[in-house]
């Protein structure tokens, strides 16, 4: 593989993993938020 | 604290003396691993000779995982942990006792393995001062880190699989340092080995300190 291909691969892996992790955290937050009454969510 | 340590170590060693799990199962297992390495790495091609120090310490690491599991399996009976907590033994002393008993058993395994390496792999123990000077701090470090990791996995349903995952990354530097020191001793250049023995001593001090300080935290959980 050429240098450019490796560089792009590295960037894509990083961006995809970060976006997937961010999505996972947000999704977990949403599904848990529904199970907890809002008065216990102090950041609101 | 030292008196408590001797009490706990004496208890563990008495259990071992009566059940002989260490001598009857862990030591034979370690020798078996040595023989299997002999099969895997053809002894006629010189690989085995070059790899002897590493194989010795890998085998010790595997044996230590079994030893730690055994040391805490003894206490896993119903109510034993509560009973231990109710005794007025200091947590630091209990940790030291556990580690001491484990170290004694590991030294016995290492002795058996040493004879095995000399007989099976044809290793020449000429630099024995460095060999002993490496084995003692390395064993102390393995026993300390092992006792601390062991108590972290106590009582969990997945403890058998979790313990190696927690313990082996911590013990990796011990493997590295002890192997390099043994290589130096077997090569007949012990001057290269003593700094590694020093690193092992530092490792042992760090983990004995962490163990004494942290053992109580895990133990006092309800």
């Amino acid at each position, binding site marked *: 593989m050429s240098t450019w291909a490796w560089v792009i691969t590295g960037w894509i*892996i*990083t961006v995809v993993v970060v976006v997937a992790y961010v999505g996972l955290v*947000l999704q977990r937050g*949403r599904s848990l*938020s529904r199970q907890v009454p809002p008065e216990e969510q102090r950041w609101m | 604290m030292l008196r408590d340590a001797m009490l706990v170590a004496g208890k563990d060693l008495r259990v071992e003396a009566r059940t002989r799990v260490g001598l009857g199962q862990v030591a034979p297992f370690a020798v078996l691993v040595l023989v299997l390495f002999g099969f895997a790495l053809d002894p006629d091609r010189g690989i085995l000779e070059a790899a002897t120090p590493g194989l010795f310490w890998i085998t010790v690491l595997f044996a230590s995982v079994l030893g730690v599991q055994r040391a805490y399996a003894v206490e896993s009976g119903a109510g034993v942990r509560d009973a231990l907590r109710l005794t007025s033994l200091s947590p630091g002393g209990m940790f030291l006792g556990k580690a001491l008993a484990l170290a004694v058993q590991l030294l016995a395994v290492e002795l058996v393995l040493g004879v095995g390496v000399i007989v099976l792999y044809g290793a020449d123990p000429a630099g024995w001062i460095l060999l002993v000077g490496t084995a003692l701090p390395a064993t102390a470090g393995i026993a300390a880190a092992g006792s601390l990791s062991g108590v*972290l*996995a106590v009582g969990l349903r997945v403890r058998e699989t979790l313990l190696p995952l927690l313990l082996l990354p*911590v013990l*990796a530097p011990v493997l590295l340092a002890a192997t390099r020191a043994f290589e130096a001793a077997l090569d007949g250049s012990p001057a290269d080995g003593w700094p590694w023995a020093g690193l092992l001593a530092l490792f042992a001090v760090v983990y004995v300190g962490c163990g004494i300080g*942290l053992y109580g935290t895990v133990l006092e959980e309800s």
Partner: protein
Amino acid sequence: MSIGNGQSAGTPLATQDTRSVTGHPTTGSPATRVLGIIVLLCLPLVLWLSFVATPPDAVQGESVRLLYVHVPSVTVAYVACFVTFVASIMWLWKRSEWWDLVGSSAAEIGSVFTALTLVSGMIWGQITWGTAWEWDPRLTSTLFLFLLLVGYQALRAASPDRSSRSRRSAVIGLLLVPNILIVNRSVQWWRSLHQDATLFRTDLDFRIEGLMLFTWMFTTAVGMVLLVWLLFHRFRVGWLANRVEERQLSEAVAARRAEATP
């Protein structure tokens, strides 16, 4: 049953004023929204700086562009692990749920970014050294850090209750830093016995300045904002999970009580 009904009746009223921004209950708050918008706005700038504005390096060529994503990953990973270490010490001192959640949140984020560090580092090694893995002290100790973080999370997942979870993980969190120091030192010592160790050093310590240095610092800064944003959200997820666990526990206790008294 009555608890569930009470909640579903109360929720819509409460959401109208505070949650109308997203329409769903989330772990977001005005502060995190600001941080998130900063990261999103900076992202095109990061890409432009990394791929268009900066020239290829004199020594490294185009592979230097990989470092604009590798270095922020390393920084975020190590800062997150240090947060876990500090939070573990603070938990051992204060014994509060807050520090436990800070430590575990940072550990999870740290393990994601350590994995990314390893991947981008290996790709960089493939370009520069021709092999994906060299027994370089930094690479090796990062691998062991990752393994220990995996153990940290396995331990938390395996612990039956919150008390044992926070106790046991605080011990591992405390061991993170001594372990990384000992591994790093021993590998460095070991590799310095071989002659080729100097070769890596010249490759790693090339000079970087001007716009390239700015890009490096800018992407790292964006990474740090992302870390803070993630820490807020992950902390709240952990906090909500604890509340759900408590509710389930009290419901189970209530169900048992109801069984016992006919």
